[in-house]
């Protein structure tokens, strides 16, 4: 895969070099990405058929998986040089994640779900609580903060997940099929909201999707089915 010419000369928020990953076993899938740069506030969408490694790439960027070789740097910090515990901590502080199934905790209120990273590791923070309130208001769920996820709609659930991902003011937001569980109308709204709120806060967004109708909303498309063209600016 080639370098990203569009990012050349701009301070890279996300920098990938010589990334190699292979699942164990004789038929294990292999992912290779030589170079990728993304700047603050830039939005990338990763497409490709099932099994092409989209989710694996997100997991490598999040530090959930450790690569066999290569480096992933976020604001200059080498994620691949960290041990498992440090990678978790880094992820909690600097990376926001949005999942297809929202992955909200049903026993917590909307507000507690948004503040989950603080409750479970980053510690109580008044500024974070204010930020959670602002994000909820900006995404239109300000009136739902006391409700449980089971009492709100699918679209509202994904907004809660977006607020949770952005609450820590992350450098990088990784979204895995964030609209896969939503109807087309809600999908467009939620995606716009994610990109708008993330870029407004200077976060780089990497999204994985199957939905080619939404590609136009992103700055760049990374097609894992065409390695030669991967990383090319569209």
């Amino acid at each position, binding site marked *: 895969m080639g370098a990203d010419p569009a990012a050349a000369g701009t301070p890279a928020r996300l920098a990938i070099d010589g990334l190699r990953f292979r699942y164990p076993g004789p038929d294990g899938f292999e992912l290779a990405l030589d170079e990728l740069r993304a700047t603050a506030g830039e939005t990338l969408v990763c497409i490709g058929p099932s099994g092409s490694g989209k989710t694996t790439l997100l997991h490598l960027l999040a530090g959930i998986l450790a690569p066999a070789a290569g480096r992933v740097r976020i604001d200059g910090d080498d994620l691949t040089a960290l041990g498992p515990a440090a990678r978790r901590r880094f992820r909690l502080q600097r990376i926001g*994640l949005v999942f297809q199934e929202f992955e909200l905790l049903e*026993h*917590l209120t909307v507000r507690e779900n948004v503040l989950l990273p603080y409750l*479970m590791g980053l510690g109580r923070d008044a500024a974070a609580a204010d930020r959670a309130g602002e994000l909820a208001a900006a995404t239109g769920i300000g009136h739902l903060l006391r409700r449980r996820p089971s009492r709100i709609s699918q679209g509202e659930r994904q907004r809660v997940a977006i607020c949770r991902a952005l609450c820590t003011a992350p450098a990088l937001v990784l979204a895995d099929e964030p609209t896969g569980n939503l109807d087309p109308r809600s999908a467009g709204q939620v995606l716009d909201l994610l990109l708008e709120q993330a870029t407004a806060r200077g976060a780089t967004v990497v999204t994985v999707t199957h939905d080619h109708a939404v590609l136009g909303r992103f700055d760049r498309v990374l097609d894992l089915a065409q390695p030669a063209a991967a990383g090319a600016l569209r």
Partner: protein
Amino acid sequence: MSGPLLLALRHLQHRRGTSLLLVACLALTGVLPIAVQLLVGAFSTRLRARALATPLVVGAPGSRFDLVLNTLYFRGRVPRPLPMRELDALIGSGLGTPIPILARDTAQGLPLVGTTPDYFAFRGLRFAAGGMPLAVGECAVGAEAAARLQLTVGSRVISDPGSLYAIEAGYPLRMRVVGVLAPAGSVSSPDDLAVFASLQTVWIAEGLGHGHAPPAEQASTAVLRADGENVVLDSSVFIYQEITEQNAASFHFHEDPAELPLTGVIVMPRDTQSATILKGRYRVADDAQMLVPADVVDEITGFVLRLKTFFDANSALVAVATAALLGLVIALSIRVRQRELQTLERLGVSRGAVARSIAWEYGIVCGLGALAALALGLALSRAVAVWWTWI
């Protein structure tokens, strides 16, 4: 409140039914061992405390357990009575102060205890109202007995007839309450639930003495036989059922006073040497035995504690089984919550924080289960202790 604790509480609230069921299971597992522990502890302490406060007991030969339980706790029956002459012999020895006890009958379902005023001083019993039953036909009642039968000074208590078909047994005797005892202590004592009267009163209640109009005033048909001073009357003679100032003089005993029965005698030896002499005398006696109540009670509690050892072993096995089941429940719960835990991991939550949250959750469940078991065990032991009021 820490985040892991908040998450644990929220999860417990969310799965309220399951959490309560788990707490209830743990509580039910723990309630019986706790109740038994408390009961056996209370049983041993109270039994022993009263035994330690009673230096020596004399009674007819037979079961030492029956003699001690009857003389100290007014429970059960002694197989044979002890004649009054044994009390006279003890008084004559000058080696201690004997307090006679006659406790084999009941009055309105409560132990009827014949004794002397020395007993009240010996047990340190105080009167909440009235005073000692000094005259024949009078009685004093324990605090709980008074409460249970709603008795006050001036009330009447009726002795229970021994048997419906025992025609030689006495008629029920109406006894006048002249004293109500204050509670004997913070915990229930046998004295709280007894009716105390003089030995003469209890003998009359047992049918060993009676009062009726003089033979000269009886109809001639009632006189079966007249032999000097002894007049045999038939059952048509009216027997007084309450002893009053007017009829008190008519009460009499036909039996030899030295043979009138006692169930036991509490002996307070003058000193250690006197105790040793008394023990020596009774060791060789055929018609009476002397016991140290503390030794007998130690034997009884020894049996109980030995039985409790088996119960404790069973409780330990149940505890191990419960712990294993709880472990299984936690393992299954973690499996069911795999997705939630995976989400926390993917967000970057440390394994320690996740473990703390789970530990809080099951710690709270176990804590609540233990507290509930303790509360229920305490309540159960109290309920049983009230049932066995004398313990």
